[in-house]
């Protein structure tokens, strides 16, 4: 399928610094992408460049196979057919909900505009609130209003800049799922920016992690979690630790857990020292296992316990166990490793 949004080798320079370096990615029509990364990593700047609020110093951006920006020219924002949901919603305080929704429907026949507004209001569950002003809506309603307003003109690409950041932490994931569903119902191509991976995983088909202006990996969410190609991505996404090991064969690794066999994510020569990514769900709690570790810290999470366990070699690892496996701190518990792929990186100090 044709790429609806294509970003090709884009550099963006802000007044003092290079904010985005050599970023390429594409999104197919109707898919949802997500850019994650720590604050200042350039993700928002990249998003703004798609909207036309930041100029490129290298590369180009295509929307619907038409170049909207390159080094020499930039189509004005209003001609790009992009929608944007802002972090603070940016609802117009002087307009009621109806007029906010209608704002992007200039030039549309009144009858069609009203039909579109009714459709959206039903879809985002704001029925009956059309005469209210933004300050008369709750936070969640404002957020859905901003989403509906951006969707109203049927943009080719919808951009969402940290849209859930002002919501309660425990609501965000659910909201993200709901918004993801609304976007799929609308069939819109969307790119979300967030620093919260759970939001991203809850709604995105494709996801990427940015750091210091670079897009380190762009893949589906499963691969991002289980097959990170960069140690920053491995640390940023999910929990886990890096355990030191020595490569003994093309598919063998000697570690604190003993010798592990499996395909290495990157080729290394025997004798090389590497770091192995171990996720909490890679380590299973098994009372019969000969490998024992001492519980040094535990976090109760309702349905499960997250244990931090110290191995005899002093390496600390995380282990998730069902909640009824309640062990005390200092207790020695049995562990087994369930790694089907060995995600390894060259050591930091190499």
């Amino acid at each position, binding site marked *: 399928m044709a790429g609806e949004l294509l970003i090709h080798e884009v550099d963006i320079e802000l007044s003092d610094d290079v904010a985005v370096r050599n970023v390429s990615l594409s999104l197919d029509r109707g898919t949802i992408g997500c850019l994650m990364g720590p604050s200042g990593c350039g993700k928002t700047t990249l998003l703004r460049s798609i*909207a*036309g*609020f930041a100029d490129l110093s290298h590369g180009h951006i295509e929307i619907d196979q038409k170049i909207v920006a390159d080094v020499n020219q930039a189509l*004005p*924002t*209003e001609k*790009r057919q*992009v*929608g*944007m949901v*802002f*972090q*603070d*919603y*940016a*609802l*117009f*305080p*002087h*307009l009621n909900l109806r007029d906010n929704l209608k*704002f*992007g429907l*200039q030039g549309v026949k009144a009858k069609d505009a009203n039909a579109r507004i009714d459709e959206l209001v039903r879809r985002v569950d704001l029925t009956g609130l059309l005469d209210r*002003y*933004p*300050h008369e809506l709750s936070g969640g309603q*404002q957020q859905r209003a901003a989403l509906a*307003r*951006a969707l*109203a*003109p049927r*943009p080719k690409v919808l*951009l969402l800049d940290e849209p859930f950041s002002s919501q309660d932490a425990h609501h965000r994931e659910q909201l993200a799922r709901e918004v993801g569903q609304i976007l799929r119902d609308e069939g819109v191509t969307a790119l979300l920016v967030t620093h919260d991976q759970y939001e991203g995983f809850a709604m995105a088909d494709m996801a990427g992690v940015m750091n210091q202006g670079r897009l380190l990996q762009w893949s589906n969410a499963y691969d991002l979690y289980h097959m990170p190609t960069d140690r920053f991505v491995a640390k940023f996404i999910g929990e886990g630790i890096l355990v030191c090991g020595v490569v003994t064969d093309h598919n063998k690794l000697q570690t604190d857990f003993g010798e592990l066999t499996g395909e290495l994510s990157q080729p290394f020569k025997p004798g090389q020292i590497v770091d192995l990514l171990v996720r909490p769900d890679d380590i299973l709690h098994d009372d019969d296992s000969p490998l024992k570790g001492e519980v040094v810290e535990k976090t109760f999470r309702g349905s499960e316990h997250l244990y931090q366990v110290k191995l005899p070699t002093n390496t600390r690892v995380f282990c998730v166990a069902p909640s009824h496996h309640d062990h005390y701190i200092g207790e020695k518990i049995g562990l087994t490793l369930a790694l089907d792929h060995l995600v390894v990186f060259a050591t930091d100090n190499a």
Partner: protein
Amino acid sequence: MAIKSTALVALVSILISLPTLVVLGSFFVPDYALWSHLLDTVFTRYVANSAVVAIEVAIGTFVMGVSSAWFIVNYQFPGRNIFAWALMLPLAFPGYIFAFFVQPLSAYLPFVPAREWVSFCLIMTLYPYVYLSARAAFIDQSVCALEAARTLGCNRRQAFLQVALPMARPSIVAGVTVATMESLADYGTAQYFGLETISTGVLRTWFGHYNLTAAAQLAATLVGAVLLLSALERSLRSKAKFHHASHRYQQMHLSWLSPSGRFGLTALMSFPVVVGFGLPSLWLIHQATGAENFGLNSQFFELAINSLGLAIIVALGLVPLAVMIAISRRDKPSRWSAALAALSRLGYATPGTVLAIGVLVPLVYIDRSLAEAGYTPLGLTTGFGGLIFAYFSRFYSVAANTVEAGLERIHRSMNETARTLGASSWRLISKVYFPLMRGSALAAVLMVFVDIMKELPATLVLRPFDFNTLAVRAFELASDERLAAAAAPALCIVLTGLIPVLYLSRQITRSRAGHGR
């Protein structure tokens, strides 16, 4: 303690609003013969002139203030950072001193009526009020709202008209209202051009006929107009409760124009600065060179000492009073204290000419009653008492507004924390309020000081016999076409007028550093 402070607040508020209330009260004892005379002769002319000037000033300051603010906030052009504060410079010129500069020019355009010259002078010196409030509003707006408009299909111009302007409306209306109220209150500019407005009419009635009742009733119409205007502003504002959802300020995306557009904008922004400040300043300096020693003679120094002394004494008296009242109002908020606060604000909305009459009426009444009862009159109208009373009444709200803005930054929780830590009222004031409010109290002293230095009509009426200030003398000399002699005192007033301008510009530079703008 609580009762005492409420009583104090009540007493001060009533005293401060007394002159305005007296003038308004005169409306309720109408003199029909007088009114039919007024209506037959001058009244319609006064009202028409005042109304036309007010409307022209409202439109003129709106156009100049809003457009310059928008360009400064949104466009990059040579000199932009300088213009950001230089556009406020004309505020240093009181309208009547700017008139000294404009009046000789009017001879070259004899077909332009005096009324238009008055409007021109007032627009050029009052537009900074609108510029300031519009600029603050534009900066305060969520950049996101403008960007959202762009993603919804608006170009820059449409985004301005449909989003930025309506969102800034409350602030712009407030700025235009201040400018319009100042134009209604203006005495000096209209008098200098010989234009008969309500404001000049009040003093003419008093000086010409010594008819205090007629002056008071005329003044009451002016207060009525001013109150109507401020009520209108309040209703416009309360309907538009614009909450800024955003507290996220992004670097404004400044637009670069084509080279001709850029320099065009520089030229456009230069106009108000050059015409409103540069040229009249140079002209005044040139005039001063026409006088011996630039007019810096013993008479000038006497005037300067009079003006400075009066302004400092009143400012130092008024500001502590405002601080005390602000604190007690805050510690004991009630419907009463809110009403009293609104009452004490009346003074600033009251034109100086009106205030003068409002002070004269009770003082004359007291002296006359004393005389009739066989006592020696106190001579209240011939000393400084009346003048200082008028200043307190007129400038109390200047001090109160500045002080209260400072007080707002002291969160209630600080107050409560200090109390739970066992601080007494005195300790609270000396250790918490005073250190935190020092800046705003000093600002209040400055603002009142400058306003008194510039004040003309009330001083003209209420000053003791043979006592002159810089403002009064400059105006008298200029009216006698002794411009060379008027220049030094006029320059002196402009120089003091620069104090609040520099103060505000420093704040602007600071806020720019904070927001990267």
